[in-house]
């Protein structure tokens, strides 16, 4: 897989959050630009093109939705991921109807954000071809089939989701909390019991290695897991 440098614009007025996102994305060698208010964001959106724009809805001097309208009216091809504190279906639908690619509710894990951004960019760049290749692993995103070399591996729905999640966050430590929320949603309260995550990971590793795949998944200090190249 050819490593593509992504250009990402982070529009977020909360400094702490903006810095964390920037750091998380630039570590991968991506290029991040930031905007802390509506005016700065507007000028950047009008001047440059990005692979993905992370758009906060509430800014001190404007509404992210207006910015989204401008992007869509000008037919800018940028992917847009709304990050919002508002978790209501109406807001979500408004955002998606206006042409946003996804909607993520604060607070979120950076790994979740990364997975969503990766998915958006994948949809934008590869168009119809939905193949994801990592070394000997090939994933058909449409039929949801995973192959190592030529061999098809049967994954359960959750195992498949987890594998994609790891691939999107290659080289990052993904916390168990983030995994739990990704797989079960935040509606289900695990009460900090992450034993089932362990068994899922164990199954993925076993299935991959039985097909002759390298062991890419490492446990990270009991806090989470890391998918390394």
């Amino acid at each position, binding site marked *: 897989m050819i490593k593509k440098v992504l250009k990402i614009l982070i529009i977020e007025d909360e400094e702490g959050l903006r810095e964390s996102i920037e750091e998380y994305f630039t570590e991968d060698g991506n290029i991040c630009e930031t905007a802390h208010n509506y005016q700065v964001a507007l000028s950047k959106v009008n001047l440059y093109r990005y692979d993905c724009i992370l758009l906060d809805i509430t800014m001190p001097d404007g509404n992210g939705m207006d910015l989204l309208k401008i992007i869509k009216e000008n037919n800018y091809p940028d992917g847009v991921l709304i990050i919002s504190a508002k978790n209501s279906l109406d807001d979500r639908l408004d955002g998606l109807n206006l042409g946003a690619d996804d909607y993520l509710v604060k607070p979120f894990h950076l790994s979740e954000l990364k997975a969503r951004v990766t998915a958006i960019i994948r949809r934008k760049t590869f168009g119809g071809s939905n193949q994801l290749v990592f070394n000997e692993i090939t994933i058909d995103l449409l039929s949801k089939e995973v192959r190592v070399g030529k061999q098809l591996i049967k994954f359960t729905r959750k195992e498949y989701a987890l594998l994609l999640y790891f691939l999107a966050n290659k080289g990052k430590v993904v916390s168990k909390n983030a995994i739990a929320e990704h797989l079960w949603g*935040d509606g289900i309260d695990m009460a900090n019991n992450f034993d089932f995550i362990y068994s899922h990971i164990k199954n993925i590793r076993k299935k991959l290695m039985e097909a002759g795949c390298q062991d890419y998944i490492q446990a990270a200090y009991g*806090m989470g897991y890391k998918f390394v190249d």
Partner: protein
Amino acid sequence: MKLLAKYNRVNLITTIVVMLITGIIYYQAISWILTSQNDKDLVVEEQEVFDYVKLNHQLPQTFQSDDQQITFTAAQPGSVKREFINTIYFKKVEEEDKHRRHHHQEYEAGRGLVSSVMVGNRYYKILIVESKVETEDLIQLIFTITICVILLLLVTLVVTNRLILNRIWQPFYSIMRELRGFNIADTKEIPQVDTTTDEFKELNRTVIDMAARAKLDYKDLKIFTENASHELLTPIAVINSKLDTLIQTENFSPQQSKLLNDLYGAVSRLNRLNQSLLLLVKIENRLLHEQQQINLKELTEEMIGQFEEIFQDKDIRLTYNLNDKAIYASHYLLEILLSNLINNAIRHNYRSGSINITLTAQSLIIQNTGESAPLVQEKIFTRFHKSSKSEGSGLGLTICRQICENFNYTLHYSYQDSYHTFTITF
């Protein structure tokens, strides 16, 4: 007791008592007047006797009369004291029969005057008795008429009271109806009641003001909760992202990673708590409107599937019997409802316990084994009530109940055969 009934009772009792008292006074007065009339007659009669004796120096002849009798008896001089007495009047009645005529006596109430007279040197006691039967008849008649008037008056009073008061109190009842239907959370205002009575106008105005004030306060409180929760989201998001960034840095000691894990746990609890509060506000404000036709059986199966790993992990035996049930509700809220209830059934269960889920057209029942004592029905649905060991937010069941109320279902807890049972009745 109804105001009308109370009023009628007081009214009736006082009317009857007053009527009785006035009746007695009335009776006494008439009786006194008539008796003194009698006495006057008696005195006239006595005077006639005296006059006769003075003139003729002998006793007058006694004669029969229908209503008066005079008798003279010899007595010891000075032994008779002049006085009026109530006595009996013997009335001779002649009755005609088929065969013969016969006499007999009837007793009637009488008024008598005892007096004395000297005829020559002989002393006589005079007894003049007059029948009071006419007087009594008169009194009786007057009394009957009075009683009839009183009864008529009472009946009229009760009937008019009932008719008029019911009508007069109508605005009051309609205000009451409005108050009973008053819901602080909905937007319906209490309407102006059509009345000309000042008191009810005042009451209506007060009630409308009060309702508006209560609604405003409630709204303020909701807005505050919502704003507070929203403001909390940003710092939580920052902590979360900083933690995510922190664990990317290498080389943690086991102690450090344990600390980080605890932090993650605490942040995620804080986040859930905050989300729950926001959700409660939304449900209570009925901000979640999007409703759709839902196959509850499918949704329940889906939710059970979500918990599969957790059932396995705790070795919980799940038995379920689901019938088809279509409902019209919010998918989002139902998911939360089911997930909260199943979550509780797992969390408050012991290892190798069991959970039963039954769905019928009337109800959804979720039963779980757990602590061997029943929970307190009133307490478990209140905010932030939770067992000391619980890691939950203490809002789960409150949310469940709110969701049920939102769709007009009832959520009920009971403890049956060592099963904690939650029943949703549609």
